């Protein structure tokens, strides 16, 4: 852990700017994947609406700063909170449904956000997006930006970790494992699903806002369905039932994009192929597989000693 921290601190001084930017982006994607996983991996609700929420976070920050002249710290606070509010309203309507219907309703809301951003040109700039975000000078250099964003992401991931490990997080996992059973040990399932969805929206909004800072603006692409699939993909790659699974998946996803993308423009082919193979042959994800092998071995040892 200390070694990891040391690497993080030293990194910007030994590698080039493009690498610093890449790692910053990675940090944001990790946060996004883990935020999403609160819904999908932890509580077991399939959402396709997170693209819209990610976009919402980004646009709220940019609109607040450009149109509202609000200082960045406040805008950075407002973005996740307002996104969480939006998520709460959407979630309140969505948690009545289950399974694929829940997923499709979130998809509809995600698309509604996307369409609103796309069509409300006067506020959002439509196709052109909103550019020209002025970043305070402390954060302007890639290295400073790197440290600021990484600090925020680490804080957020730590909060997610605390949530997942808490009795609240445990309750969410019970709901994922068996809703009927959760209900009859006294858990109000819908209420907890709504809370989990809202918390997930909060962190997704934060990730979107950070991404807007990195990109110096907000664009319609931030809110597409493809964007909604990204964290799900990351979760499947890494394994969504283990805490660091989605983070690992996000890393793999970005490396696929960056490195294979550098050799060939056909990286979606590779990514899609990987996804197909994973879903068919390794549905637990890579980290998830390792974890379950370990668990099984531990139980075997336990049984043989007992």
């Amino acid at each position, binding site marked *: 852990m200390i070694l990891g921290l040391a690497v993080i601190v030293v990194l910007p001084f030994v590698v080039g700017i493009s690498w610093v930017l890449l790692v910053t982006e990675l940090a944001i994607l990790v946060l996004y994947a883990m935020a999403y996983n609160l819904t999908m991996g932890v509580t077991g609700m399939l959402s396709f609406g997170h693209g819209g929420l990610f976009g919402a976070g980004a646009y709220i920050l940019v609109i607040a700063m450009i149109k509202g002249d609000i200082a960045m710290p406040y805008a950075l606070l407002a973005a996740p909170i307002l996104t969480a509010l939006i998520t709460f309203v959407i979630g309140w309507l969505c948690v009545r449904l289950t399974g694929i219907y829940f997923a499709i309703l979130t998809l509809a809301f995600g698309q509604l956000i996307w369409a609103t951003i796309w069509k409300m040109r006067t506020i959002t700039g439509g196709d052109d997006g909103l550019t020209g975000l002025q970043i305070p000078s402390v954060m302007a250099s890639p290295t400073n930006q790197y440290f600021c964003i990484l600090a925020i992401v680490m804080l957020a991931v730590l909060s997610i970790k605390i949530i997942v490990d808490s009795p609240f997080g445990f309750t969410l996992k019970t709901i994922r494992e068996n809703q009927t059973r959760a209900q009859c040990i006294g858990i109000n399932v819908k209420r907890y699903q709504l809370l989990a969805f809202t918390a997930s929206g909060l962190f997704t909004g934060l990730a979107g806002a950070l991404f807007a800072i990195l990109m110096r603006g907000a664009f319609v692409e931030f809110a597409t369905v493809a964007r909604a699939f990204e964290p799900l993909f990351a979760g499947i790659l890494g394994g969504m039932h283990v805490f660091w699974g989605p983070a690992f998946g996000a890393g793999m996803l970005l490396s696929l994009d960056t490195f294979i993308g550098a050799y060939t423009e056909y990286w979606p082919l590779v990514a*899609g192929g990987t996804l197909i193979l994973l879903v*068919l042959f390794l549905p637990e994800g890579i980290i998830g597989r390792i974890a379950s092998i370990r668990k099984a071995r531990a139980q075997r040892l336990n049984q043989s000693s007992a």
Partner: protein
Amino acid sequence: MGLDAILFQVLTGVGKGMNLFLLASGLSLIYGVLNVVNFAHATFYLIAAYICYTITGLFPNGYWLALILAPIGAALLGGICERLFSRLYDKEHYTQIMLAWGLILVFGDLMKLTWGSEGKMVPTPDVLAGGVPLLGGNFPITYIFVIGVAAAIGIALYVVLYRTKVGIDVRAAAADAEMTSALGVPVDKLYIIVFMVACWLAGVGGVIATLLSPIYLGGDLEIILAAFIIVIIGGMGSILGSLVGSLIYGVVFALGILVLPRFALVFLYILMVLVLIFRPYGLLGRPR
């Protein structure tokens, strides 16, 4: 705006809607019978459209040949994909959706490799060029053709499902696959057939869509969302629901463009949200 102009627009919407019906009915059929959410369904539509482009480029008057061959190509490809999906029939829906997403990415890239990333236009066959004077405007023959083909296929689909042994078996399997197999019906073979027929329908949809708009990469994602809106509004698993949903989609979109040009799509999303909240199984669907 005159009443004629509005009616004219409604007719255009019906044309678009009927084209989408071919796609939506297949999506609905796959869900109803196999309980699979085939997010990649529109990809078969796009592939057929590209095959049609190639065939029309090779042969003069190749459009009619394409109308026969391209959907068959989509169906064969669908048959292969069904074998992949079959491994996930008893798994959670999200795994099927991720498999579909993988297929979308892979096929998307393969299409880019084969046909490049510029948009493509398929020349309209001479017979279908021009229009007929109607309601004070000139209604394109292509739209009439699309409505005609889709209606004919819709009727054929109905006849097969309700009048033939295979169709009745399909409906039985949709309700209770295990009991159907215990009556001597090889349900897994039935599944392959249904998947292939659905992809064939999507293929026909793709080929006739080339008459209405250009072909471009990523078009499948737009179309699949439209198809989802349709089956949600109409009811997943109901063929009649897809028809009603398609017509609602086409007409609301066409009229929406007249009223608030930029928000036509938003209307449809709102409609879908309302349906999901108040009648999650759709206007003509039933809860399962």
